[in-house]
């Protein structure tokens, strides 16, 4: 799988039509996802950091593999900002293969022949777990901005409730990249006794000022779109496609790297060899970004994008522990493997090193690898043999230690 599809290199109608997109009439996956759903009633509310008890709520999830009799082989995959539970399953909207089939599957480092793998859509998202596109029982209309602000810790608490529901006491492995990596760190800090091994990839212990800045640009693009309608677009029958598309275009640049962009696109023209002296997508990179914006709009909810970017912004694990990151992991028995990528400038290696240093200070067993790659932040989703071999070594050794 590669984030840069062949279609990006072909001339597209995009160049003529700009940011118009064919939109689904609504977001069917948000309310009725094509995956199992765990429903929690008013007797089982989700306590949220915003100070609210969310009830009722639901969590959409997918699994692969089989839970063993001892219930000791469970793996929780935490997805990234715009990811979902379909890690090894055909996506119900895009029809694409699961987003982490590079790493997860029979015989893969996360071997579904050996482990029971779970991935749930995070709270606040739009693929079946309760979020701003869900119906607010108090008003009988979509929550919109009435939905409480979500944190990474809220996501993790909800996942823990899902595991309780599935009868899984503790995880053999908790793994994720980017925002998923934040959840892994939060899991290890919040429920250390429930995590045997943790594998945070391309992530950091907090969202940096630069990352908050990029997110804010994206949010402002959405809110500047008149079709956003103060967040009430689902009722208004509009969709802030332009705003969300621009947000995605900007964010997508941060997921790549200058060398990767240069290698894929350079300054090549789209369908010609000269500029058109217009604001059409002359350059291949422009066409590619527009394609990214358009295809994203078809599968993602604008308000969910606001909420999830905010959740990442608020994440600061050290701040939750008196400013000392090591205290988040004090006394932990979890074994860690931290992986970063040389060309990731969104979560640069220095962020991973901060995690590693804190784990060292807390005397936690930690391995750390910086993978040489020019593919930027998105490398964690791509074919990176060094990442696979590091993950395999760590996971196999952890499995031996757990007697799996």
């Amino acid at each position, binding site marked *: 799988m590669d984030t840069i599809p062949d279609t990006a290199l072909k001339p597209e109608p995009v160049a003529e039509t700009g940011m118009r997109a064919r939109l689904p009439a609504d977001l069917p996956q948000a309310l009725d996802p094509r995956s199992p759903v765990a429903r929690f009633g008013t007797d089982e509310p989700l306590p949220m950091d915003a100070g609210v008890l969310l009830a009722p709520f639901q969590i959409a999830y997918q699994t692969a593999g089989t839970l063993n009799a001892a219930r000791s082989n469970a793996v929780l995959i935490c997805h990234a900002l715009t990811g979902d539970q379909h890690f090894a399953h055909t996506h119900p909207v895009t029809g694409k293969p699961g987003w982490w089939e590079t790493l997860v599957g029979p015989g893969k480092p996360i071997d579904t022949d050996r482990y029971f793998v779970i991935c749930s859509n995070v709270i606040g998202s739009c693929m079946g777990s309760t979020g701003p596109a869900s119906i607010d029982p108090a008003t009988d209309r979509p929550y919109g901005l009435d939905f409480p602000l979500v944190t990474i810790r809220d996501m993790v608490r909800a996942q823990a409730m899902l595991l309780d529901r599935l009868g899984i006491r503790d995880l053999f492995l908790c793994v994720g990249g980017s925002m998923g990596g934040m959840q892994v760190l939060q899991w290890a800090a919040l429920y250390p006794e429930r995590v045997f091994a943790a594998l945070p990839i391309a992530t950091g212990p907090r969202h940096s000022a630069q990352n908050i800045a990029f997110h804010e640009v994206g949010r402002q693009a959405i809110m500047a779109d008149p079709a956003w309608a103060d967040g009430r677009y689902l009722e208004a029958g509009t969709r802030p496609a332009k705003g969300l598309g621009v947000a995605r275009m900007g964010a997508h640049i941060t997921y790549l790297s200058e060398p990767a962009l240069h290698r894929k696109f350079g300054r090549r023209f789209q369908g010609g060899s000269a500029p058109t002296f217009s604001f059409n997508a002359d350059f291949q990179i422009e066409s590619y970004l527009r394609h990214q914006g358009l295809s994203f709009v078809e599968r993602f909810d604008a308000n969910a994008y606001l909420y999830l970017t905010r959740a990442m912004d608020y994440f600061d694990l050290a701040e939750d522990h008196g400013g000392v990151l090591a205290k988040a992991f004090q006394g932990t028995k979890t074994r860690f493997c931290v992986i970063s990528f040389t060309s990731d400038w969104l979560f640069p290696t220095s962020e991973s*090193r901060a995690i590693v240093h804190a784990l060292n200070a807390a*005397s936690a067993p930690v*391995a750390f690898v910086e993978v040489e790659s020019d593919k930027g932040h998105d490398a964690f989703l791509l074919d990176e043999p060094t990442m696979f071999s590091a993950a395999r070594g760590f996971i196999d050794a952890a499995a031996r230690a757990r007697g799996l």
Partner: protein
Amino acid sequence: MSGRDEAILGNAADSAPWDAAERLPHGTEAGGARVDHIVVLGLVPPGARVLDIGCGDGSLLALLRDRRGVDGRGIELSREGVNACLARGLPVIQGDADTDLANYPDDAFDVVVLSQTIQATRNPRIVLEHLLRIGRQVIISFPNFGHWRVRSELAFRGRMPVTEILPEAWYETQNIHHCTIRDFVGLCREIGARIEKATALDARGRPMRFSMPWWFWNLIGAQGVFLLRRGAPRD
């Protein structure tokens, strides 16, 4: 040579620093382990918390884990080395002795091991000070630039030495801070490190089993292995 320097060396020799070598399990080379690793094995107490800096493919850590039941951690610069360690199930971080040691708290480990690495660091003195701060004991080994073959290469051929233990030419070696056994003893004195045990190994890494004064080891030892502890020298 200054009188002060002589006094240190004489003093250390008086305290029989090579006794450790006599108690080492010399017959264990058949187990497949590197001989210099066996020397380190003989210095690490069972169940200790050990940090191996420049741990390579993790063979020493694995040996210490399997034979001494240590809680071992490693730091290694090369990706290949880190991957090999991960495959052995060893918690090893990709890092650099020059930059990463500052982040470890005091007394974090019972034993810190630095094998054949100090001569490749940018600031050996600061590295050594960190080792003594992080570990209650420090085991450090390095190629002895005072070895007679090194001296004869320089003295008679006028060339930078290329020997069994220093196999690379001057323009491609990682070793930027060569020292002799006596130089190292001098540095220990200067930063107040106590030499608890010391031994010299021959070019194949085997401990030399007879007691001799420092100048002799400095001439015929291919590498030095020291067990250090922070604190003033016993004089």
